Structures are given as structure tokens and as C-alpha cells.
């Protein structure tokens, strides 16, 4: 057992946890933040992407104890009250999802991509989302959503 403290979506949290607990398990089961999904056990699908100190990470491939003292943001932490984050709104407007399982990871990856390169091209988006797999949409509307979201983020 280790006492773990970090900030999640702006709130300080602290728990005694087992050293072998994955960060995604801590988020979903200890904090009940079930927006972060688990889609594979090979670290390939990206359904679990969150930000740790502003950097996108696969939370299924990080131990919770590795995030000690860090600032974690999940899909639950990006809206302002009732107002969706521009990237979430863009996925809604462009119909960038079908079943929605990959969507939280897609949105978190996309936000970091746009922050790193606000003027990104369609090719940059497709390559930047290589670590996010969607079995429903064929990606076309996801790319459109990220383009729209990027535009809205530039304005915001």
C-alpha cells in the first residue's frame, strides 16, 4: 500500500492504494470517473487517453503511483459547467461518433494535438490519432470533428 496524492480535474485527491493498481483503474473504480474507457490490454486502442501534466497518456499503461503529485485531466474535467469543451461540441456537431466507446480518448488526444499545433492539417490529424482506434466510424467524421474543434479552440 502507498498513500497516493494527485490532482484530478482540478480537485486534490488522496487514497491508500496497492502499488500495482493501474491509473485507469484508480480513475474508474476508486474515483468513479468512468468516462475514461478500457478497450484493450495491448496498449493500442487509446480509449483510455487522459492528460498527465498536460501530456496525453494511455492511463491503462501507467501505474497510479507513477502519477503521484501530478495534475491529471480526464474527459470529465474539460467542460465548463454545462458548456461542453469546443472539441466535445465539435464531435457532437459533426457526428464524430457512433457507439461512443472510443470518443473520450479521441477527444483527449485531439485536444493535445491542437494545443501542440493549432494550424494542423488533415494529415496531421490522421497521423496524430494513430493511437486511437475506432471500430465504428471509419474516422471520416472524427477528422472533420477535430478540424471543427481546432477552429473553435483557436477562436476561444
Amino acid at each position, binding site marked *: 500500500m502507498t498513500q497516493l496524492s494527485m490532482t484530478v480535474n482540478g480537485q486534490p485527491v488522496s487514497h491508500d492504494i496497492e502499488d500495482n493498481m*493501474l491509473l485507469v483503474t484508480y480513475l474508474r473504480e476508486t474515483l468513479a470517473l468512468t468516462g475514461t474507457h478500457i478497450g484493450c490490454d495491448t496498449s493500442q486502442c487509446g480509449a483510455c487517453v487522459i492528460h498527465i501534466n498536460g501530456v*496525453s497518456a494511455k492511463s491503462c499503461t501507467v501505474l497510479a*503511483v*507513477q502519477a503521484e503529485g501530478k495534475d491529471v485531466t480526464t474527459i470529465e474535467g474539460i467542460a465548463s459547467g454545462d458548456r461542453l469543451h469546443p472539441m466535445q461540441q465539435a464531435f457532437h456537431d459533426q457526428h464524430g461518433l457512433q457507439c461512443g466507446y472510443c470518443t473520450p480518448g479521441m477527444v483527449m488526444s485531439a485536444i493535445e494535438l491542437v494545443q501542440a499545433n493549432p494550424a494542423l492539417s488533415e494529415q496531421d490529424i490522421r497521423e496524430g490519432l494513430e493511437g486511437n482506434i475506432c471500430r465504428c466510424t471509419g474516422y471520416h467524421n472524427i477528422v472533420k470533428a477535430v478540424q471543427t474543434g481546432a477552429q473553435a479552440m483557436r477562436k476561444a
Partner: protein
Amino acid sequence: MYATQYHKAISLDDARSQLAAADDAKLLAGGMTLIPTLKQRLAQTDLLIDLADTGLTLIEDTGSHLKIGAMCRHYDVETSTLVATMIPMLGSLAGGIGDRQVRNYGTLGGSIANNDPSACYPAALMALGANIHTSERDIAAEDFFVGMFETDLDEQEIVTAVSFPKPDKAAYVKFPNPASRYAMVGVCVAVMDGDVRVAITGAGQDGVFRHNDMEAALSEQFSAMAIETVAIDEEMLLSDIHAGADYRAHLVREMTRRAITACQP
């Protein structure tokens, strides 16, 4: 994942003494290979020693070499201006590893210590004739990569950095597995002081290897034409669900052709 303890080392010395004191400890770098392996219970350990805070993140020009710390993430190498000016091939190799999230965590030291037969870095280290620095000694790349998932490292040894000599020109080209982006076949061609070196990853049953016959042909004439008729021995190539040995042999020639054409200073 089986139960384990976690220790975040505060220095290289701390990591060394923890490693020496424990029965069965493992070093944790980016975790992009180790954690999936642990979580599928393909491996087990009493103690994970996290190298995240041990430094080992320097990228420097030593005059003769480009020296990259073991804990440099693929993202650091991909975006380093020093790497881009000294050996741009390494920046583009790192930028082609896995996906953005893998590059945000995976490290040079973890990649070479793991020596996955489909990993990208081993090809570059072999082609450039890099030197691997560890907590105990220096090891030439040729001696370091022993076989599939096998290196010359002993259990108490920590990779600290890799020194790359600057090539006259070099390129790394891979055919990525469409799901993981690992190299189905990856080829690094480098010209070092006039010597042509060709290292191949993703294809060999014993991991990364140099192709002497292609090197000889390219020394005569450095062009994609020169390797058209060089024999590629399928007997020593991997065959798995991703590709048979015959297809890999085809990819070896094709990726080598592309690397020759892409070679740049």
C-alpha cells in the same frame, strides 16, 4: 497484474543499490512494454524501480558523437533540434515509433534493453555502430544485441546513454504493422566514413542483423539497382500471423531500396 512494490529512484546510484538489494526487481522506464507485459501476467516482479527521476535525459554533442540519455522519450528525440541538425534520421525514426502516446512515454533505454525483434532503434544503433553506455561499462551495438528479446546486459546493469557517431548519410525506412506501428520490416542504411552499413529489424529470427551481401553490393555502387539481385535468405527470417518469411524477404529488399533513395546527410 500480480502484486508488486514500487520505488521511484531519486538517482542512478539509488536505482543501482535498490537493484542490488532486491531479489527480483525490474527497472521501469516508459512502461510501454513492461506494463502491458505485467498486466497480462506474462511477467512478474517483486519490485519496480522507476527511473523517471534519475536524470539520464541529456542530449548532447560530444564533438565526435551525438549522445542521448537512456530516459529520453521518443518524443524528446523526435523534437530535439540538436538531433535534427546532427543525425536527422534518428529524429524521424523516433517520430515514427508507435503513436503519440507511446512516444510521450517510451524511452531509448527501454527500447534497446527490451530488444524486441520488431523495434526500430536497434536497426539505427547497428547501422551507425553506436556505443551503449551502462552503469558498469560501454558496449558496442554489435555485442549488445544478442538475440530476440536478449541483450548483453546483466541483471544489475542499467543503460545510461547511447553515443551515435555521425554518418555521412543515413535513412531508416519501415513497413509498419497497421495496428501497432512496430516494424514488420525496418531497414537502416548508413554510410560511415565511406563504409556502407545495412541493418535490418523486424525480419530476423534472432532480432536485428546486418546484411553483409547488400553492404558489399552497395559499396561497389550506391544505388537501389545494386541490390536487385542480392540473395535474401528466407530461412533466417521470421514467419508469423503478420507476415510469412517470403513476404518479409520481399519487404527487406523493398525497404532497403527506399532507404537507399531516402539517404540524406
